[in-house]
């Protein structure tokens, strides 16, 4: 994104998050530049999902500042937050679909809520479903999908608005190795298109596989703090 090289897509500055009287994350500082690729790892319960939720504003930091596209997230009202999320593609750990709608409508949901004319977006939608290998499952309901298909549908929904950043929480959590490689390739392809990608995962094999294909920084949450992971990965 020419001219935006100096701007951070997401920036955390001395962020802490407390819950139920205890501090879950503390003194987090990180800057995600446009077009960068980051992995976020750490043991289960270390706060990876919380970190992502802070990035897309589902949770508010109890100390420090979270900025998205140079805007303090705390300063946003609910409508402004909605507009902000249209610039973010979020792949939730449990995917979260509207079970009464077919897969194609779920994937197109960001277009629907932003008031875009779906008639004009049909070709893009079909191409995207084909890209994630779900063309033949377009009319299925989400509960009929396998774990891998759900993850791919969630990824397609996350990128249909061509967001500036993709935040994925364990996108390969419920799929076999082959499927996780396929999903990884999709995310790498997005990154090559200039999108910033942040993947939270505890799957170190996936990180190793990615590092051979893309220049990725690996962050680790340990003892509530964020560290840059070393060569052990």
């Amino acid at each position, binding site marked *: 994104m020419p001219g935006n090289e100096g701007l951070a897509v997401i920036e955390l500055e001395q962020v802490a998050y407390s819950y139920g009287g205890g501090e879950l994350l503390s003194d987090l500082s990180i800057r995600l530049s446009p077009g960068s690729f980051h992995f976020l790892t750490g043991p289960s319960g270390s706060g990876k999902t919380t970190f992502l939720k802070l990035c897309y504003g*589902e949770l508010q930091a109890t100390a420090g500042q979270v900025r998205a596209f140079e805007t303090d997230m705390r300063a946003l009202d*609910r*409508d402004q937050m*909605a*507009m902000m*999320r*249209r610039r973010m593609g*979020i792949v*939730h750990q449990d995917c*979260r*679909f*509207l*079970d*009464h*709608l077919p897969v194609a*409508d779920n994937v197109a*949901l*960001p277009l*629907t*809520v*932003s008031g875009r004319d*779906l008639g004009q977006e049909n070709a893009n939608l079909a191409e995207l479903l084909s890209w994630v290998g779900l063309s033949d499952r377009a009319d299925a309901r989400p509960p009929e999908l396998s774990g891998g298909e759900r993850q791919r549908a969630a990824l397609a*929904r996350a990128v249909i*608005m061509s967001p500036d950043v993709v935040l994925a929480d364990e996108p390969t959590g419920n799929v076999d190795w082959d499927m996780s490689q396929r999903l990884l390739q999709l995310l790498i392809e997005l990154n090559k298109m200039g999108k910033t990608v942040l993947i939270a995962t505890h799957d170190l094999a996936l990180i190793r596989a990615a590092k051979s294909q893309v220049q990725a920084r690996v962050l680790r949450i340990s003892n509530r703090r964020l560290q840059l992971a070393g060569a052990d990965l």
Partner: protein
Amino acid sequence: MNAIINLIVGDAQADRVVPPTGFTARLTLFASGAMAFLTVFALALSLASGRLAHRWAEELARSATIRISAPADQMAAQTEAALTVLKQTPGVASARALSAAEQAALLAPWFGPDLPLDQLPMPQLVEVIEDSTGYDAQGLRLRLAAEVPGATLDDHTRWRKPLVDAARSLRRLGWISILLIGGAMAAMITLAAQAALAANHQVIEVLRLVGARDNYIALAFVRRFTIRAFLGATVGVVLGLAGVLLLPSASDEGGFLTGLGFQGATWLWPVLIPPLGALVALLATGAAARRTLRRLS
């Protein structure tokens, strides 16, 4: 303004994001239908009471009766004197003495047609019709007392006022009932909307995750409840009007109850009930949606 246009025109795609929910849909349809049905009857009652109050007030206020009780040999003279006084009284349009046959007809319902009234010491009745300016009842009484000692003026005030008051109270009660029905309908639809919103909190989370604004989410629910309330109220009004049509038609013998219904242009009033019901649903659901979305943020 855009929100109102969106509400009316709708967006088929946006409508689908909220899943159809069973019991809240049925509750809204039933509540709005039942309330519209009751509103038709409350409206019919109120309008009929209004007509009655108006008629009694108009008819009775324009007429009065003078009763002359005098010995038989003075009766004709006192009647003539009373008519002379009435002719000279400003505000009296006309006055005439009732004939013996007319007086007999008035008593017939109580004593039967065969009563020999000519053998009884009957008072003479004089019917007085006032003009639009009206007359001074107190002044007329004083003049009659001076010039026609056997005459008593009855301007019907004693028994007209409570009747008119009763009819007006009935009309007021009808309107209060309509307001209460509207309030009860709003409360029921609010409960249904809150239940639907609470049951769909995961849908709301997903919509927010993909960038839906609160107005978009609220409108999806508001439209659904407004349309349901309109449909339910339409059915209720149709059934209510059928019920009113089945009531006996107005007649003198039936009195007030047979006049319960709509007349002339007032038949158009029930047409307003479905849009008003939809408006109540729109406001109630809108308020419930705003509250719930604020709480879920």
